[in-house]
């Protein structure tokens, strides 16, 4: 194709850039959802259930409605249409219709002229409940199918059952020199964004609704609003405000968003809701507490011959992303070290707690913790160095895994070498004094999910570009700025292609009226998908501008080059135009200069049921070494330093990459040492600690030093080769810390968080001559369905399940809606 060019070598990409919104953020100018104040705005509050599991017998809102200042009260029957993020889990109501399923489940909503009046009105609502048996955890839910929390499930209170077998795992295990089984538990944790969720709705008398919200997924909120409110989507505008932290916690459509929309429609006035910190804990959608069992067979040299992995997820009261989360606990075990035969069995239970969903790493930090600690134990058993064991059996680049994931570039080897060298691993592992230790772990993460949340054949990301005759460029994209720097990525990529500076590019994002759809800020998809769409749009603009600039300059078009705000002949750089002049020529000839770009991931290689979770255009890789100090007298673990290497493919914004890696290490450290969603199972299943003080997260005093290595191995699927860096580097941190604790004091803490109490108990057990371990001791019997059998690529097949290998339909004991 005839095209103008940018000169070789990057002018923008790879450099540390000030983010396009940095100045607004450091001056307090950025408008978060709760910073919006509209004239005549009302304030909404939600009444939430005090019971973990109950039937609603009656609700009387008459006194609340009569309170001065109260403009509207809503209950479940006002919004009877269910919603949910996944098409297979449309199990939520804006306000509970007939049942509540956790303490904090919304039951009624009030809009009033002041927050105080709305709060007071909640106290005047009388709800009569018939209390039902509550299920405090997944084991209880597995054991007791009745009373059912939902009227749909794969079996009793088991929401989802998965059984996938890739090859003959038993045969694989039979070939092993060593077979090892281990049990692990990963406690639930929450996102804890500093910004409490907030939303403002405005209803216009011409029948149009606008919702501003702290959401990571405006497109999915748009769909949910249209469905529940029975409005044409074309009459709804969702604007994603910059999120004050998301981490996955603002990725579902939420009751409060739909409630304020309906309240605005009912009252004809703008309505705002801002959740209290306690309510943010009830919204949750965080890390699933996950019990795991893993059995692996290996040759003496550490080569895996087969792996069998089981997970049991505690899902909380609703589906949320849970079906995907469950698949994710079994999907990525195969992309780091070669696994020739693999079986995954996963179950997600409904329980009477706030719903779990996607938190940074979505469903993969739990199995990664299990796998990396398991491998540490295996390395010891085989007498191998844990780094050497991993390095010897890396998945080769450009290969298919047993479960048909297509691995492209694979930079884990260099990552391991960096942290091993940097940490002085060889001189320190097993050689530090008692109480001090170092541990190693690795991981991988997707760069964008291969499939959208709902089935469709359209692009995952779209970009429109407008070139102004003044030389400015505006990029429009539905992506959502949650602090990760996605707005800046758009500006930088467009600037790179068109030879501009990022600040020459205006960015309009996250507005369903103004911007083409991008699916949202989740699954580490944004840089890769919006980046590729932006490159396409910018290259199309470059083509048009180059054509007319070339004519004017009497230069062959393949010599027309874009750099430093100019368009010029690469062989005679003096012969050129300003970018603005070039746009004017193109506009005079062609009319308004606007282009579009789109990105759709390639179809997945696997064609079996469940193959939709795990495929990604590219996998990032991380390796981590953690250093710990363990006080044997108290069990207190301190982490002074972490070395992390991350294969990012290609750096787009260097400063942002560093920040994402450090932030991931921080969040992983919190999960390793202290963060837990704890409930009083025996006391009404209430959340023990719904506050920022009691829910422990690392402060400056707990955060460790971080030595970061950025590994670049450009991936052909990434924009300029870029892969993700916002989630992957979290994953190896908890297992690296657990492995380091073992190196320090010789006890295995097979669950996170690694609290002083657990370390202390394990040390006491060891002193008494028992196994020096703290962790789960059994995995429950679950009536798994017949497995879906899919031959791995090296056994032929085409990625489909073997006919007759799986019984179609659902497991025994299933009720349908």
């Amino acid at each position, binding site marked *: 194709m005839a095209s103008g060019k940018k000169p070789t070598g990057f002018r923008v990409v790879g450099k*540390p850039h*000030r*983010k396009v*919104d*940095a*100045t*607004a953020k*450091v*001056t*307090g*100018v*950025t408008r*978060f959802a*709760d*910073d919006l*104040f509209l004239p005549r705005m009302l304030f909404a509050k939600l009444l939430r259930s005090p019971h973990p599991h109950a039937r609603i017998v009656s609700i009387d809102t008459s006194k609340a409605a009569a*309170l*001065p200042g109260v403009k509207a009260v809503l209950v479940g029957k006002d919004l009877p249409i269910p919603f949910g993020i996944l098409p297979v889990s449309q199990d939520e109501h804006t306000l509970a219709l007939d049942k509540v399923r956790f303490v904090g489940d919304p039951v009624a909503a009030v809009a009033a002229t*002041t927050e*105080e009046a709305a709060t*007071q009105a909640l106290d005047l609502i009388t709800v009569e409940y018939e209390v039902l048996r509550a299920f405090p955890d997944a084991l209880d839910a597995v054991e007791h199918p009745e009373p059912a929390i939902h009227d749909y499930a794969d079996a009793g209170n088991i929401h989802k059952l998965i059984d996938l077998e890739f090859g003959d795992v038993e045969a694989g295990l039979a070939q092993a020199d060593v077979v090892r089984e281990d049990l692990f538990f990963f406690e639930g944790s929450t*996102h*804890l*964004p*500093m*910004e*409490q969720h907030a939303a403002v709705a405005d209803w216009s008398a011409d029948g149009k609704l606008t919702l501003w919200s702290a959401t990571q997924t405006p497109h999915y909120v748009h769909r949910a609003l249209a469905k529940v409110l029975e409005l044409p989507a074309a009459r709804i505008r969702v604007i994603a405000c*910059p999120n*004050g*932290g*998301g981490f996955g916690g603002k990725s579902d459509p939420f009751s409060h968003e739909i409630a304020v929309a309906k309240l605005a429609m009912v009252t004809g006035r703008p309505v705002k809701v801002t959740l209290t*910190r306690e309510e943010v804990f009830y919204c949750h959608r965080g890390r699933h507490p996950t019990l795991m069992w893993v059995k692996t067979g290996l040759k003496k040299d550490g080569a895996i011959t087969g792996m069998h992995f089981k997970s049991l997820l505690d899902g909380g009261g609703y589906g949320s992303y849970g079906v995907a989360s469950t698949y994710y606990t079994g999907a990525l075990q195969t992309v780091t070290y070669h696994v020739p035969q693999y079986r995954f069995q996963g179950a997600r239970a409904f329980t009477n707690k706030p719903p779990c969903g996607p938190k940074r790493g979505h469903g993969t930090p739990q199995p990664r913790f299990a796998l990396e600690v398991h491998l540490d134990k295996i390395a010891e058993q085989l007498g191998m160095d844990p780094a050497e064991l991993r390095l010897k059996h890396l998945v080769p680049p450009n290969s298919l895994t047993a479960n048909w994931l297509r691995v492209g570039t694979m930079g884990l080897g260099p990552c391991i070498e960096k942290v091993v060298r*940097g940490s002085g691993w060889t001189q320190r592992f097993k050689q530090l004094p008692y109480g001090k230790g170092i541990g190693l772990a690795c991981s991988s993460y997707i760069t964008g999910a291969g499939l959208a949340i709902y089935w469709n054949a359209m692009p995952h990301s779209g970009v429109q570009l407008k070139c102004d005759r003044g030389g400015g460029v505006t990029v429009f994209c539905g992506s959502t700025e949650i*602090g*990760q*720097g996605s707005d800046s990525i758009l500006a930088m990529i467009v600037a790179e292609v068109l030879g501009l500076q990022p600040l020459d590019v205006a960015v309009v994002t996250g507005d369903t009226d103004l911007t083409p759809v991008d699916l949202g800020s989740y699954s580490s998809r944004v840089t890769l998908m919006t980046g590729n769409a932006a490159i396409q749009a910018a290259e199309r603009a470059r083509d048009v501008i180059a054509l007319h600039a070339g004519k004017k300059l009497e230069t062959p078009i393949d010599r027309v080059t874009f750099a430093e705000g100019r368009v010029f002949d690469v062989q005679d750089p003096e012969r050129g135009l300003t970018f603005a002049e070039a746009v004017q020529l193109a506009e005079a000839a062609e009319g308004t200069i606007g282009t579009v770009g789109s990105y759709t991931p390639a179809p997945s290689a696997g064609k079996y049921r469940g193959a939709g979770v795990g495929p990604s255009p590219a996998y990032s890789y991380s390796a981590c070494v953690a250093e710990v100090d363990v006080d044997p007298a108290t069990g207190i673990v301190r982490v002074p330093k972490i070395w992390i290497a991350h294969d990012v493919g290609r*750096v787009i914004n*260097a*400063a942002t*990459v*560093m*920040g994402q890696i*450090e*932030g*991931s*290490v*921080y*969040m992983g*450290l919190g999960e390793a040492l202290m963060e837990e969603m704890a409930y009083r199972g025996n006391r009404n299943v209430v959340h023990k600690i719904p*506050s*920022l*003080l009691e829910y422990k*997260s690392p402060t*400056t*005093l707990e*955060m460790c030093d*971080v030595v*970061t*290595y*950025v590994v670049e191995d450009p991936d052909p699927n990434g924009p300029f080769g870029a892969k993700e860096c916002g989630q992957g580097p979290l994953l190896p941190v908890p297992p690296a810390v657990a492995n380091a604790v073992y190196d320090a004091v010789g006890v295995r803490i097979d669950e996170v968080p690694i609290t002083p109490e657990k370390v202390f108990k394990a040390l006491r057990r060891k002193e008494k001559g028992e196994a020096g371990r703290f962790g789960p001791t059994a995995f429950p019997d679950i009536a798994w369905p017949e497995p879906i059998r899919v031959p791995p690529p090296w056994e032929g097949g085409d990625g489909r399940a073997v006919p007759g290998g799986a019984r179609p339909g659902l497991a025994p004991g299933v009720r349908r809606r």
Partner: protein
Amino acid sequence: MATPDAKAKIALELNGEAVEVAFAPHKTLLEVLREDLGLTGTKHGCELGECGTCTVLVDGIPVLSCLVLGLACAGHRVKTVEGMAERGTLHPLQEAFAELGAAQCGYCTPAFLLAAEALLASSARPTRDEIKQALSGNLCRCTGYIKIYEAVELAAARLRGEDAKPAPETLYGVR
């Protein structure tokens, strides 16, 4: 709700200017700033004094504006993030935070900037540990604090008149 409380009026010095403001007397400084003075740069994360997100300076000292009554600020000097840049020029702390990406989502940033400003007012060359201590009451979920420490150190050096630049490993990692 019954009739709202009669408004109280106070005078204070806000971001270097004399200001009078009337508000319901039960309101916290946080609420007065955001709702009655339109200064939404001050954020909230819990409104219980747990997260530090609402930090502002009162007479140069960092306070949690969610725990201070507006009335208690009568006659005092209050500084918010809106008062840090002067005549369109960012404060060196703001400059360094922007340069290093110490503001990711930006929600806790105003509070960190003000807590850091108070630190630098009393200590021109704080050690890393002093910075950690001074900022230990402020939670950030995005950055892992590291870019924040580095930004405070960079700003401190510049405030001392040094021609300081970020270390390469701050921006690119260890090569």
